[in-house]
């Protein structure tokens, strides 16, 4: 594998694998709580962080982490208190974040929208040593949270009201989910870009659940899909000279289509197995009893 001889490709592949693991790992909880587009919103807010990073000559990755974590916390607060006007407040946050990014980067000395493009759509080949360190640390945090607290996050994402009655710190866990999603966005920023981050959080999960019945299996399969598409996308972009971010996202959607096609006969076989196991449970045809039972008397 000559591809592994280049230091920049080693860094790119490492970053790609970490994104393949972390994005679906937090994305599954967002999909479970039906906030699939939250990652997209955080991605918009992170642009302000990138802009500020250029303006203040700070590391754009760390600045984007800081700003997107603040944005995610703000989104969670809007969800608690916002109620009816919540969606409008979120819209202002998203587009304010995007506008802020463009503004700051143009104010930065020597900055232009060209700098922003590598963050919007990813720029794997320019991932530096310090970027890799940041990505590794942030990815470790995401894995620790999503695996270590999987039962708590599952309970809160499945049924918030019930989770409160089991004594779980629901608000703290919601905030932690938002913060972890924000961290994941900045991990994935250099690989697929801020505008495509959400695809890697949502589509592998959607693809996995075409085949799976349990949460644990969905988690495992979506992470496997995530790693497979980020690795193959990175390698493809090296040999074919196509943009890695777009390649990875298109491959993910391809995986979804493939899973959906594979799932159809599997679902049919499961339905057959279920009807063979318990024909009385779910008969496909109506059966008319010979005599009327007590349950047939409709009360008025």
């Amino acid at each position: 594998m000559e591809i592994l001889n280049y230091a920049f490709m080693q860094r790119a592949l490492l970053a790609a694998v970490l994104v393949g693991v972390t994005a679906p790992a937090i994305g599954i909880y967002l999909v479970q709580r039906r906030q699939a587009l939250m990652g997209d919103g955080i991605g918009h807010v992170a642009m302000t962080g990138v802009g500020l990073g250029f303006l203040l000559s700070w590391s754009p990755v760390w600045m984007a982490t800081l700003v997107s974590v603040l944005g995610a916390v703000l989104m969670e607060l809007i969800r608690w208190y916002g109620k009816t006007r919540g969606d409008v407040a979120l819209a202002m946050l998203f587009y304010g974040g995007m506008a802020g990014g463009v503004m700051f980067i143009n104010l930065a000395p020597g900055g232009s929208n060209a700098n922003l493009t590598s963050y919007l759509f990813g720029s794997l080949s320019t991932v530096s040593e310090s970027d890799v360190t940041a990505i590794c640390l942030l990815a470790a945090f995401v894995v620790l949270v999503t695996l270590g607290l999987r039962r708590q996050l599952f309970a809160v994402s499945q049924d918030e009201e019930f989770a409160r009655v089991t004594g779980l710190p629901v608000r703290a866990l919601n905030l932690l989910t938002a913060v972890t999603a924000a961290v994941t966005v900045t991990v994935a920023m250099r690989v697929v870009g801020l505008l495509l981050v959400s695809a890697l959080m949502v589509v592998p999960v959607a693809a996995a659940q075409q085949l799976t019945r349990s949460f644990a299996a969905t988690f495992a399969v979506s992470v496997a899909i995530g790693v497979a598409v980020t690795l193959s996308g990175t390698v493809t972009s090296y040999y074919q000279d196509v943009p890695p971010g777009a390649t990875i996202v298109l491959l993910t959607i391809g995986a979804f289509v493939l899973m959906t096609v594979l799932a159809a006969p599997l679902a049919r076989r499961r339905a057959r197995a279920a009807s063979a196991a318990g024909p009385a449970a779910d008969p496909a045809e109506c059966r008319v009893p010979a005599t009327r039972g007590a349950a047939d008397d409709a009360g008025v």
Partner: protein
Amino acid sequence: MSDEPVISLRGVRAELGSRPVLRGIDLTVGRGEVVALLGANGSGKSTAVRTLIGQVPVTAGAVELFGTPRRRFRDWARVGYVPQRTTAAGGVPATVTEVVSSGRLSRARLGILRKADHEAVRRALDLVGMADRAKDSVNALSGGQHQRVLIARALAAEPELLIMDEPMAGVDLASQEVLATTLRAQVAAGTTVLLVLHELGPLEPLIDRAVVLRDGCVLHDGPPPEAVGQHALPGHDHVHPHAPAGAEPIRTGLLS
């Protein structure tokens, strides 16, 4: 064990979006009692239960669980809650066991389930007759089976108090019977139960006391209102002998 009530609401007021929903209700449930909270839609019965679990903030009055003010209550493993819901499914597939296991988290430190916890989950599934569906996705279940899963989730922590919000809503006859049997066994074992119900229905023989709400006020607190013959018709006006003269008849039925 002390004699203090398991549930105590005193003069509780609550608002939903500045509209008063509870206008000062009192409700006491003693140890081992089975109390039904009845009332028409919008009477505040679900809100009353949701103040108990802290889902709806209280604007006045006192809420106590096991003699502890609700705000300081931490012993959630003693409480099993069945929310009003027609489905247990989220946006990602989950098996019956996975959903029921989350009910055990109140007894599991740091969310680590040990062997005893897994056994408790299996027992809870047995109690509601869903052990054979343990590995199935909750998306594949009927409404009645969903409700049985939600009840198993509440039972997984082996609670002393069960709070159920409309457990019979949208449940088929077979599941209703399973639920009534499950509840009977829990009551026999000494569990305290607070049920929110639209009508007494098949659970009637289990109920010690009924509290009827209307417009956020307690209208009746005593033996379950007996409804026979034409009086049992939904929407029938239930006239109370001890109601003040000229009081409006109590409507507890579906059509009121």
